[in-house]
């Protein structure tokens, strides 16, 4: 792959300009999910998008992935408008998205299979990335034989195996237990630092955001608007018990509390109206 690093440094990897998304446009159930959100992601940056449940952060991510077109606004990747999904931007979902009828190694190599790479070559490459994520001895197992954390690691290996530039992660560790979640966060940072990928990571979990991010974008409750962009300049590895971490946590809690309250009130209002109808 030929990359012009000179321009990449100046250029942003991903740019969102006034992006809006309306679900069910022109129907009675019309919902404004994302409202004129603008931000950009630097090459190699670890960006976390955080917001209360239902604020449209997942919607934003699937628009960047190219799975959903924005209703208004523009999204650019390396200066090109995003027209659809691309192997250059890999998505990691909340649930494991491994295909249950394929062995782990075939899953990891699946992106290459779609490209038409022959079996031997793709298995060789997949094996390398399985080793990278510590699943070498599980290559010929099937997804249901793996734990939740292992399944997510295999999904990450699949994205890396395809040589993706940008990892889009939609609450990837939300379904894991606390210990596994912590291990996976450390693991992800290792991978990110070693591979130099750009990461856009969605979560509603404040500690996770502070632990991982170079920069955190806070979205408001529905409709999702950009509330704040906070740079986390703590050295890694970050200590969740440190006073600096605490300071960031308080800041986020303050920001998000008002939003959660607002979301709740709105929810109650909707329910009241629903019962009246």
């Amino acid at each position, binding site marked *: 792959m030929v990359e012009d690093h000179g321009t990449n440094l100046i250029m942003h990897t991903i740019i969102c300009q006034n992006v809006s998304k309306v679900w069910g446009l022109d129907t009675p159930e019309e919902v404004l999910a994302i409202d004129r959100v603008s931000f950009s992601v630097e090459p190699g940056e670890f960006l976390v998008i955080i917001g209360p449940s239902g604020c449209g952060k997942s919607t934003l991510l699937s628009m960047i992935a*190219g799975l959903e077109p924005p209703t208004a606004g523009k999204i650019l990747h390396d200066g090109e408008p995003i027209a659809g999904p691309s*192997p250059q931007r890999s998505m990691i979902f909340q649930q494991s998205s491994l295909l249950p009828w394929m062995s782990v190694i075939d899953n990891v190599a699946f992106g290459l299979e779609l490209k038409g790479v022959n079996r031997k070559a793709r298995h060789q490459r997949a094996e390398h990335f399985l080793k990278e994520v510590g699943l070498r001895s599980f290559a010929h197992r099937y997804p*249901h034989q793996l734990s939740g954390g292992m399944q997510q690691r295999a999904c990450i290996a699949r994205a890396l195996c395809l040589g993706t530039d940008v990892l889009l992660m939609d609450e990837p560790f939300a379904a894991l237990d*606390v*210990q596994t979640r912590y291990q996976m966060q450390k693991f992800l940072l290792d991978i990110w630092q070693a591979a130099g990928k750009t990461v856009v990571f969605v979560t509603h979990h404040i*500690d996770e955001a502070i632990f991982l991010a170079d920069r955190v974008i806070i979205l408001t409750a529905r409709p999702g608007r950009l509330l704040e962009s906070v740079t986390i300049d703590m050295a890694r590895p970050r200590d969740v018990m440190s006073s600096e971490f605490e300071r960031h946590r308080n800041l986020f809690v303050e920001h998000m509390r008002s939003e959660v309250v607002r979301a709740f009130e709105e929810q109650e209002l909707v329910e009241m109206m629903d019962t009246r109808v």
Partner: protein
Amino acid sequence: MQQTPVQESQSTAPLQSSSLSERKRKARIKSLKSLVQQVLWWVLSLSLFIGLWELLSALGLLNTLILPAPHQFIAEIANQEQFMSLKVGVERTGANFAALTAIVATLTRVLSGLVLGFIAALLVGCLAAYFKIFGNLTLPVITLLAPIAPIAWIPFAILAFGIGDGAAIFVVFVGIFFILTLATVNTIRNVDQLYINTARVLGASRRQVMFKIILPAIIPDLFVILRMNLFAAWMAVLAAEMVGVNTGLGAIIMVGRQMFNAKLMFLGMAMIGVVGYLLDAGFAQIQKRVLWWKTTAQI
């Protein structure tokens, strides 16, 4: 939620793996035990049924001319000169049947119809899901044809294909084709969007999504539906054999009735029961293989 950096304990790993073979052995013994138990219950249930029947018959409470006792209709085998002949395709001479010929004839019809119906339904269903216009044009007709029982097609089949394999295979084919086509379209719609999105993000074209995601995802479900319709197909063939197609297991019963030979009738019925059961058991085995990733994932 607070995050506490707890190290995952590794010390239990070797302990677990050493007891794994032990656990497997125990599980095998347990499954063997339940198998033996099941066989015993089968034997008991059958003996009870046959014993009661023989008893009533011996007491003279049954008219054995119409309802012969099991030992009587099994003895009928001796009267059928060719019954035990191991040659397939032995012509029936008068009312004399060759068991193997009849079984093979019936099974060939059922299986040919099923295979043809399955392939055709998969093809049409995928096309209907893939090309919207094709789907819109064909699905209403298929929806209306589906409720027509396969038996209702027999008169037409005999007129169109004449007496023989063609008519019987056609009846099985229509018996499953419409239902399975609708099921295909339905299961395609229900394929987990997560798998489709995954493939799209990894760069799959529409065709690749169809062949690499949708097809493998729907085959197990379709197989379940195929098996559910197996008995309908089986019955349709037997009915066809009784009405017009003069060979196969169904024809044995009909000839028995025409000759007023109740023993031959019941012999045919017993054969249908046993062969039908074995056919379903065979399908269950295949289903286990096809469904392996579903069943084990659900345990």
